[in-house]
């Protein structure tokens, strides 16, 4: 290498480093891929919040559906609730997983704010949450018609995120059902 070009080496290194750091600014470390992507929805036998009867995996799989982990203690869940209602009104199948919550408070929440869920699975101890790798609420799992988890969204679902990222995934899963 000519000695003149060698002088530019520190600049080149700096630019490279800056590029990596700049990229790092727009990465969200909280956005981790779920370990359950392309794995079947775990087996469970829990209670249905409204009916009080047992609800199992076979009751909820068979169509493309969203499994929304929520709780009344979760403030962000209240934020996303109206949009879930909107999606449910559009015909999106949403099941609720009431995570580490009190049944009475959960039922009151759904009476007061509306109920976008096909059914609600009561997960008081967080056992289903553990099998799903849930580490907070809200989280939403996209399950295809065969009962396989295809995507996990951590955090609030709002119109912007639905339009830009989640709707294409949902449409893709729907297309697989009716080719």
């Amino acid at each position, binding site marked *: 290498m000519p000695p003149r070009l060698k002088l530019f080496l520190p600049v080149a290194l700096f630019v490279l480093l800056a590029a990596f750091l700049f990229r790092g600014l727009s990465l969200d470390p909280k956005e*981790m891929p779920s*370990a359950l992507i392309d794995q079947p929805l775990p087996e469970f036998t829990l209670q249905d919040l409204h009916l009080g009867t047992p609800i199992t995996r076979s009751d909820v799989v068979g169509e493309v559906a969203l499994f929304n982990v929520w709780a009344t203690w979760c403030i962000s869940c209240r934020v996303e609730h109206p949009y879930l209602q909107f999606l449910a009104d559009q015909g999106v199948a949403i099941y609720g997983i009431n995570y580490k919550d009190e049944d009475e408070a959960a039922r009151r929440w759904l009476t007061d704010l509306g109920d976008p869920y096909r059914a609600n699975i009561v997960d008081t101890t967080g056992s289903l949450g553990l099998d*799903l*790798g849930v580490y907070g609420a809200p989280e939403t799992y996209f399950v295809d018609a065969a009962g396989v988890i295809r995507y996990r969204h951590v955090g609030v679902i709002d119109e912007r995120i639905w339009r830009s990222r989640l709707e294409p995934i949902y449409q893709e899963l729907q297309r697989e059902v009716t080719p």
Partner: protein
Amino acid sequence: MKLFSLILVLVSSSFFAAGSVAVIETYEFSSPELQQRYRQMSAELRCPKCQNQNIADSNAPIAQDLRRILYEQLESGSSDSEILDFMVSRYGEFVRYSPSFSGATAVLWLAPVILFLLAGLIVFISLGRRRGLADQPPPELSEQEQQRLQTLLNKAERDN
């Protein structure tokens, strides 16, 4: 003196307070060996919620859950690798502070070794070059240069 002892009490009580927050719950183990393994593994498992803490240090609900599961599985006789598999199948390699070696973690594991070797190579080459320069005899002066040197030396002597 009174003030000093008051400060001492305040400072030491704040230490105790910090300690009581860190130890969140206690488990009774059937053997000291299990307790030792619990301590080891809860330090190696990473809290998925707080990201830069292990589950032993974290107060997050999910860390509490994982500690309880760790305790239950240890008491029921699971091996360390069975417990790790259980955690990894749910939370991914992310929950381990020392993830297993695989295609995705190869860079993580190999980077220090490669960087170390690279640094060694650079030091070796640059030292070698410097030694090479030192070993060379100084270049011979040409006839002209010799003459010029002589006149300069002479001039310097005269000026003195």
